[in-house]
């Protein structure tokens, strides 16, 4: 990937129509990056139970979004989910982990503690008031701890940011952080529908598609 992202724009751009080609390559790279986010196994308190265990387990199934391959080494990870309270003594270690990750690297701050210090904001001698005092954060997911649905909303927001906001013309530049709170009036059914729509765009085959696609199925299936 390094060779492609470093050398390709310089090779393609001078060609006639090369600019269009770079955009197409952008889309391909962003698509693959956003659908293969490898999170770092990093949790400092209760949010880690929600984010790493509940979302990763079968019921909520983080694997649907390609982000289930938790890596114990920052060298192999490209998504840092700050799940939990960051204290003064942890802060330099967190910074080190972030610096060790290869670019492009993404950071999600989940839960009140990682966003602003949460319940430990006042009268605490050691809690850092927000992980963004140490490292840049791309997506904030509020909650104490956030539900798996809220975490997925944050993950989908990050995927959207990656798909829309990056170009190999300007590596490292990204769109501004987004607060991934659920909008007012959004219900669980809306979330389910959005996920359903999202999944159906991928490799899912619907009955109508299958019939329209070729001669493998009889036309009677259309009645379904």
């Amino acid at each position, binding site marked *: 990937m390094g060779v492609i992202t470093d050398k390709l724009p310089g090779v393609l751009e001078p060609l006639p129509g090369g600019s269009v080609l770079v955009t197409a390559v952008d889309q391909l790279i962003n698509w693959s990056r956003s659908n293969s986010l490898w999170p770092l196994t990093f949790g400092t308190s209760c949010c880690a139970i929600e984010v790493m265990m509940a979302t990763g387990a079968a019921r909520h199934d983080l694997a649907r979004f390609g982000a289930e391959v938790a890596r114990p080494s920052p060298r192999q990870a490209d998504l840092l989910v700050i799940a939990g309270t960051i204290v*003064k*003594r942890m802060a330099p270690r967190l910074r080190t982990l972030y610096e060790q990750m290869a670019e492009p690297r993404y950071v999600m701050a989940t839960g009140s503690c990682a966003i602003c210090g949460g319940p430990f*904001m*006042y*009268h*605490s*001698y*050691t809690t850092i*008031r927000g992980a963004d005092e140490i490292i840049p954060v791309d997506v904030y997911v509020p909650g104490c701890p956030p539900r798996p649905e809220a975490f997925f909303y944050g993950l989908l927001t990050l995927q959207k940011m990656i798909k829309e906001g990056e170009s190999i013309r300007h590596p490292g530049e990204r769109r501004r952080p987004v607060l991934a709170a659920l909008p007012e009036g959004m219900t669980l059914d809306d979330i389910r529908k959005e996920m359903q729509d999202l999944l159906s765009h991928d490799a899912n085959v619907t009955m109508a598609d299958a019939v329209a696609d070729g001669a493998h199925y009889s036309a009677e299936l259309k009645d379904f």
Partner: protein
Amino acid sequence: MDAPNLIAAVQALQPDATVRAQSDRPTLIVPAHALVALATQLRDDPDLRFDLLETHTAIDWLEEDRFELLYLLTSVPHGHHLTLSVSIDRDAPLVPTVCQVWPIAEWLEREAYDLFGILYDDHPDLRRLFLEDDWVGFPLRKDYEDDFMLERPE
């Protein structure tokens, strides 16, 4: 051994020990100079056998100008519990260590030193446990303040 018998048995060993009011489990107030001798007897006495120091912590009584040190003891063979309470001067918080009696006390006392600044006489390795080595002050003291802390706005 039930609570009244336990208290009577310990007071027979150490007549200076008095019962602490308002305690959930049998608690005896012990003078600091008698702590190590009593702790050794509690561990070795065949009827008491307090072989486990469950935890050790401190309370900062700021108004009364003293630290109260608590030693929560359990006897695994007999299944009974006892708490020892030692009060020491807040300005000179020096107390003998019980490392030689219960080795786990080494780390528990390091924690109490780290957060309350209590000094343990004869402790083999009195360093900070949780905070950075260059930390200034003892944050669980009631009068602790630093620049980092944020006051809640009214």
